[in-house]
């Protein structure tokens, strides 16, 4: 287990290095660092002097090292548009995105597990077929289209739910602005969460169903039945626990997809999170902010994936004891 831990963390560090390298390359080749500082009305000679002073003529690797050192201290450059440190801008927007992602994940986990198990155990039941039918339609509708439809029906048509923004917010410690504590904030969460989960939920239902079906055909399930265990125990303790392992792995990866989809959802709902900010930054060619977003989101993915893998290692006795996959 210890070797596994070390291995996984080393991998995570390596991946972060690669990400920072990509981010830095983007910054080097696309953005003009002088623009952040000076603006356009500076003569060529002055630019060259400034370039030398800022170390922009140094070798690539040296500059990358400098970029890394600054990034470790939380300095990811300044946003050209906001005129503030990019990380600060992102941190200000992060709570909105994370709350959306969290409520979506909750929705996905709570619904996909029972439905997936049910569909695996009773594949021929009409309700299971209905769920599977809905889920394939669900995978086939792009998130932004689901979002638009939801808005059209529930906001424009019925007028039940708000169509944009986060509603009334409460500021928690550390400046975290939360929508979880007001009824207005929760109301604003409903449509975006449903829209965002519309792509993940079918995927997970299908995944859990497929894995569970496979597990149910194994010898050890048949053996558990031959031991005379109660059907519920066979299903949940013997069946689902083995289904969980692959689901956890995929779950970690899918969280990345979820954050990618927040870009679309936030755009439609004008949700003031990182995703919408990123699209605006792309429109404004705010390179520093784009790179900062890349690094920030990358760090988020890597952390989540590493944690998921470690949890997987804890759940799976093969790794816990033998230390290897």
């Amino acid at each position, binding site marked *: 287990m*210890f*070797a596994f831990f*070390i*291995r996984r963390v*080393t*991998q995570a560090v390596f991946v972060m290095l690669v990400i920072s390298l990509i981010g830095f390359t983007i910054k080097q080749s696309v953005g003009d660092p002088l623009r952040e500082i000076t603006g356009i009305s500076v003569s060529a000679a002055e630019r060259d002097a400034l370039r030398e002073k800022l170390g922009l003529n140094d070798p690539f690797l040296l500059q990358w090292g400098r970029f890394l050192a600054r990034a470790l201290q939380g300095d990811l450059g300044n946003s050209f548009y906001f005129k503030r440190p990019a990380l600060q801008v992102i941190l200000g927007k992060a709570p909105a995105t994370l709350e959306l992602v969290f409520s979506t994940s909750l929705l996905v986990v709570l619904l996909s597990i029972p439905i997936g198990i049910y569909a695996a155990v009773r594949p021929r039941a009409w309700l299971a077929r209905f769920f599977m039918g809905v889920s394939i339609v669900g995978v086939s509708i792009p998130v932004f289209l689901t979002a638009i439809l939801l808005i059209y029906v529930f906001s424009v048509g019925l007028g039940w739910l708000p169509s944009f923004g986060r509603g009334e917010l409460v500021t928690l410690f550390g400046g975290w602005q939360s929508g979880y504590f007001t009824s207005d904030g929760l109301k604003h969460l409903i449509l975006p969460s449903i829209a965002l989960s519309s792509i993940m939920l079918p995927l997970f239902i299908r995944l859990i169903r497929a894995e569970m079906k496979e597990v149910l055909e194994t010898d050890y399930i048949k053996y558990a039945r031959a031991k005379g265990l109660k059907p519920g125990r066979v299903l949940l303790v013997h069946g689902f626990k083995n289904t969980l392992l692959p689901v956890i792995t995929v779950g970690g990866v899918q969280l990345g997809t979820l954050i990618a989809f927040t870009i679309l959802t936030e755009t439609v709902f004008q949700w003031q999170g990182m995703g919408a900010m990123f699209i605006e930054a792309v429109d404004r060619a705010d390179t520093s902010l784009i790179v900062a977003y890349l690094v920030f989101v990358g760090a988020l993915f890597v952390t989540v994936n590493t944690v998921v893998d470690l949890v997987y290692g804890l759940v799976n006795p093969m790794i816990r004891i033998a230390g*290897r996959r």
Partner: protein
Amino acid sequence: MNTDTLVSIRDLHKHFDISGGWLDQLRFTGGRFARRKTLVQAVNGVSFDIMEGETVSVVGESGCGKSTLARTVMRLYPPQAGEVHYRGRRIDHLSREQFKPYRTRMQMIFQDPYASLNPRMRVRQILEEPIRFHRPKTSGSEVLDRVAEIMQQVGVDPEWRERYPHEFSGGQRQRISIARALAVDPEFIVADEPIAALDVSIQAQILNLMMDLQEKRRLTYLFISHDLSVVAHISNRVAVMYLGTLCELAAIDALFDRPRHPYTQALLSAIPRLGAKGFQHQRLTGDVPTPIDLPSGCVFHGRCPHANDRCAREVPTLRPQGQETLVACHGVAEGRLPD
């Protein structure tokens, strides 16, 4: 016995590195990090000769390295150390191009009739491929005739040449697999558990076929098997392997009438016997050690009822016992084993 040595295996070693990338090799022991490779020592210093026209069988339980030995001889794996000679010429260090002529002389039959034929190729294509590859000048009709002839010989109707492997039963597939090996007219055939995956009545068919072919074509077999009763039936000499080393090499009658090595004795006593009531087999204590951490001294000493200090320290070498037997056992050499 026969005259000429066909294949000679000398002190062959084959290890597999299963430690993965360098991160996988990292260990944390005694307060510091160390890189350690995990080696599977599948074959350790095996030597024996195979005479022309005979059948030598290698027996042993799973994980003893018998299949690895077969594949190393066939150059599917490069050996770590040791040599393989064919008719007196060393062949284990040849390049693929240099080795090519030997491919027509030595061929192989595999265990799993369902995995050993490419499911996407017709029987005709499977059998044509070796002929066309090694004799590119053969005309199309000649190749076709040759395929029909071999199919006939192994007892598969040549009319079925355009079918795919999955249209055949396990026994028929094994016949096709034998036909593929025979397509280039080899003189030496390595058979890796060729009947282990078949039912009893089909096993008899394949064994008979192999014995007929040996007679007709003067083939030499290296026969790998875990089934001692089959081995007793088909071979002239038997090599018993345990954990990558050779324990005993003996002519068939000598081995079955008077097994010398304690492991051979245990193995023979454990064969289920038709009509025997109950069990009188020699019990071995403990589990087979893994080939990753080989025991010191004699690899069998941990489970051997006759082991002493010397067995734990010193690796025994193969020594002749009587006319037709070689045994690697200190106990036998010292004469302290009960007879």
